[in-house]
């Protein structure tokens, strides 16, 4: 083999250097694209949930666009149907601010993704529902049952934690990992015995008479918004404006519940009575505070101990940034 041969195929040296240069250019332009001036802030949210009420209202009222126009930027909204793409998008600079519950952010942090929690949308209790005619009436009755839940969500954490409190360990019941639309199907056709999920999925089952929640359990979902570390560093003033919009919207939805419920119902394409049933469960005055930090640390420790995440996460060590709420 002579120089200039690549294995058996002869590539003229001039041509191969052109190819190499083209590849380099491609790589360089790929790296460059995000160092431009801010043109768009990319918002992402996960699944359909009433706890995004304040975010949905701000979106619909155009408050994000208003705040961003001063910076010459626009808002772009994306909805994710499953959790992994959110962390994958954060890690590859494809989304800037995400609305979700705390556990996926903890999982991302554990994997070394640069993400910070910058605010709380609201808190909402974790609920477990069973078919209306089910023989399950207490949490203890869930022993040996099949329970649908989306792995990695607060509902997953809440389910395990709530059942641990009544003495049921992970081997005492079967967790079936399903997204809400699949789980809804399985729940209504009797293929699972229970379903741990959030509003409005719970209220839809209640309203149609197909499901009822089991009382007990005190696990809480912290519906948070988090941002990419790089975005916070490059555009702290924009971040501050976004957090301010969320605070404004949280205050507004508390002052105008009827109008807010109507907006959320429209955004989710659901009857307003479903949203009305879910609304009182959401605590819109929740903020980043000591109680929230303790709760998130408990979640992080639990995820680590149960083997879901590899590296421990110290919530107090720069994972939560309350500076934009001041």
């Amino acid at each position: 083999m002579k120089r200039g041969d690549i294995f058996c195929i002869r590539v003229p040296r001039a041509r191969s250097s052109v190819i190499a240069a083209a590849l380099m250019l491609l790589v360089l332009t790929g790296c460059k694209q995000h160092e431009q001036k801010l043109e768009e802030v990319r918002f992402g949210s996960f699944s359909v949930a009433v706890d995004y009420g304040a975010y949905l209202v701000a979106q619909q009222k155009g408050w994000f666009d208003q705040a961003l126009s001063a910076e010459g930027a626009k808002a772009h909204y994306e909805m994710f149907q499953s959790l992994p793409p959110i962390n994958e998008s954060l890690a590859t600079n494809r989304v800037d601010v995400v609305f979700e519950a705390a556990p996926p952010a903890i999982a991302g942090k554990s994997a070394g993704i640069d993400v910070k929690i910058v605010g709380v949308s609201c808190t909402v209790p974790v609920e477990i529902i069973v078919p209306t005619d089910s023989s399950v009436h207490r949490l203890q009755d869930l022993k040996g049952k099949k329970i649908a839940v989306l792995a990695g969500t607060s509902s997953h954490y809440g389910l395990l934690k709530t059942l641990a409190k009544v003495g049921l360990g992970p081997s005492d019941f079967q967790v079936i990992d399903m997204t809400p639309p699949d789980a809804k199907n399985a729940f209504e056709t009797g293929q699972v015995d229970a379903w741990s999920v959030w509003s409005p999925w719970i209220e839809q089952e209640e309203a149609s008479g197909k499901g009822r929640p089991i009382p007990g359990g005190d696990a809480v979902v912290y519906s948070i918004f988090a941002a990419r570390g790089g975005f916070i560093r490059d555009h702290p003033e924009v971040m501050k404006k976004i957090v301010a919009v969320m605070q404004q919207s949280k205050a507004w939805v508390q002052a105008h519940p009827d109008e807010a419920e109507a907006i959320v119902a429209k955004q989710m394409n659901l009857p307003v009575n479903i949203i009305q049933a879910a609304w009182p469960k959401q605590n819109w005055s929740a903020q980043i505070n000591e109680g929230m930090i303790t709760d998130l640390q408990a979640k992080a420790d639990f995820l680590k101990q149960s083997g879901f995440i590899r590296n421990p996460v110290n919530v107090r060590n720069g994972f939560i940034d309350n500076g934009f709420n001041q």
Partner: protein
Amino acid sequence: MASTNKCIRVPLSPENRVAGTRKHLQIALQYAIVPLTLLLLWEAAVRFGWVPNSLIASPSQVAIRLMKMLGNLSLEKNALVSLKRLSVGFALGTATGIAAGVLVGASRIGARMLEPTILTLLPIPPIAWIPLLIILFGIGDASKIALISLGSFCTLFFSTTYGIRTADRNLVELAQVLDKDRRILVLEILLPGAIPNILSSMRVALALSWTLLICSEVIASSSGLGWLIWDARNFSRADDMIVGMIAVGILGKASDWLLDLLERRLTRWRVAYRELQNG
């Protein structure tokens, strides 16, 4: 086959021996160059941060994790669950596919009754059946097995029918002249004639079965290799995810090798291009 390939050993001269070793090295290099380059590139890409190392683990991290998961049996347990689903689904789909194929290929009434329906359903990608299968068979093993067998059924039905219809016309005429009954015609002429077709499409069906297995285990599951990959992705455990992928790759290759072996045994009578290549 070894006995027929016996050759006389001629003592090699030193020059020939060197040339022989060099040839062996060259062949080894031809095998190793692509996987080794890929491994090195992969390790470098993770080490130097060309890809986000929070999402993709390096080969060395994956190797360590692989040993750990083999040690605590979590990989074996999930692999066994998957292999069970795969083998039952594949066997069921293959058997029914061949049976339906013979019926349609060998009998005109069978063709009239079954062929239009099956051919209409055939183009629907098996994955599109998932919602229906879950409603019909639940979220346990049954719906996963049904999905896999559906894929194998379609593949085998097609190739069996085709294999029978393209059987050697002279042999069929000979059987008719000799007044052989239908059973003998099917079992001794049509089916054996279709066997090369059937076997090669079984390998295609097996590859499809692995795809469908992983798809089905991602949807509603709490065990299996597909679930393992999905769960690792869910919690950003990049090393576990790639271990799961490698396990699928290795088991997939092993199962294909088994079928290849079967194919060689059952079609020994056919002289194929392959034998020329192997020398």
